[in-house]
């Protein structure tokens, strides 16, 4: 199963989006593991995820995350508008595009 990591400051608001994305995945019939972590903890799972999405509020930490991931999988900042509107479907689709 593909693993999708969302990164933000404390994991609070991102976990909201994670729930929306899980709903969207279920609706779409895609099997996916989606979870949120603060940047400080993403090292631990870096080797097992298939894509990393950053909350726009921590977009300046992208270089740090990219260093951890070391080009293995795609790293991208979530679109502000999609994040703000908690548009789980849009973010999920973008993630699937990145994995594909």
């Amino acid at each position: 199963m593909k693993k999708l990591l969302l990164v933000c400051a404390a994991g609070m608001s991102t976990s909201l989006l994670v729930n929306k994305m899980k709903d969207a995945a279920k609706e779409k019939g895609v099997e996916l593991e989606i979870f949120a972590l603060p940047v400080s903890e993403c090292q631990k799972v870096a080797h097992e995820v298939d894509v990393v999405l950053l909350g726009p509020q921590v977009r300046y930490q992208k270089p740090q995350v990219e260093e951890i991931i070391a080009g293995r999988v795609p790293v991208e900042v979530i679109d502000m508008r999609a994040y703000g509107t908690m548009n789980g479907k849009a973010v999920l689709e973008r993630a699937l595009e990145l994995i594909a």
Partner: protein
Amino acid sequence: MGFMAAFEKFAEKTLVPVAAKLNSQRHIVAIRDAFILSFPITLAGSLIVLLNFAVLAPDGFIAKILFLHKLFPNLADLQSVFSPVLNGSVNILSMFIVFLVARNMAISLKADELLSGLTGLSVFFIIYPPYTNVDGANFLTTQWVGAQGLFVALIVGLLVGELFSKLSKSKRLQINMPDSVPPAVSRSFKVLFPIIIITVLFAIVNALINAIYPDGLHGFIYAAIQTPLKSLGTNIVSLVILAIVSNLLWVFGIHGPNTIAAIREAMFAEANLENLNFVAEHGTAWGAPYPVTWAINDAFANYGGSGMTLGLLIAIFIVAKRQDYRDIGKLSIAPGIFNINEPVIFGLPVVLNPILIVPFILVPAINIIIGYVAIVSGLIPPIAYSVPWTTPGPLIAFLGTGGNYIALLLGFVCLAVSTLVYLPFVIAANKANAVAYGEQKSDSDVSA
């Protein structure tokens, strides 16, 4: 839009790189994450204080409301059951911090994190004031393991983390065991020399400092660094400046509170813990030693999250005609009650919104000053009980003051003030974007 574009360009050139530096600089990250990680434990201590003095004490406000002391006359005896939690949490915070900072440093420098943390703790006690012998038993002062030792903990954590990581990478200092030796054993041998060097080094430094300054390293750092920084932090000007900087960062879509966390914690941690200890001793927030702390921000100026956006949401429900505003409002109200507001900030958005950034920065500053005036004028006691920042707005003021009803009322006044200040800006934003909105919607549909 020309002005806004120039403004954004300016921010991306100046503010964003600074924020990025602050958030990736390993010493700052190590300090910030140490406070984040120890937070649940200090929170446990704070909740016990709240439990002891609000519920179990006969004159506690919850006890009074529920007539608990009439139902259970011996309730107060239970206080002594729970108060040791304080001894295992906030009263030994410096021990957690020194371990965590040294550990975090080793993580970012890719060294053995656990042993780095332990070495930090070891050094913390190497430079600790020596035992005093009373009637054949040895005693260690508790003075520096809690709030007052925080700076030593931070400095030792950073130095040990740095030294440990550097030394343990030196091939000449490693003792490599044959493969047949269990990994746990060879792991500790690998860093044996670095640990010996660090501990001996600090023992020598400690002896030298003690020779010059009889109060020792702890006393020296407390007087030379921690006390000045604390007095710098615990005044209204610093408080307002910190809030403005934090909210200004959000305007550019950067997590403000997170970015200033290391500085903020360093300034206010001791004052917060001293306040909590005052409450634990006296059972009241009146007369707490540090009336001006960051807690004022949480109690009066952070409802809904940064920028006090609960006021913005209410303003939207009152006057907004734009459907997207009302939709975001509905989506944001539930997390907003618990002071989480990324949907508002990125959804409306507030980010780089030339109209909304004005009240977003103004409202918290106004409300901090309202809270400050109420406290220094003696209308309400200081916010001495620590309450988690995710507690719904006015309740932070109520619980933080130990159940003061005027503080609760003032919380609602602040909420009304924030709504009133946001109202004209929401009306303006509605008018300004009414035309552009049609285009924008079809736009976001494509990208979304």
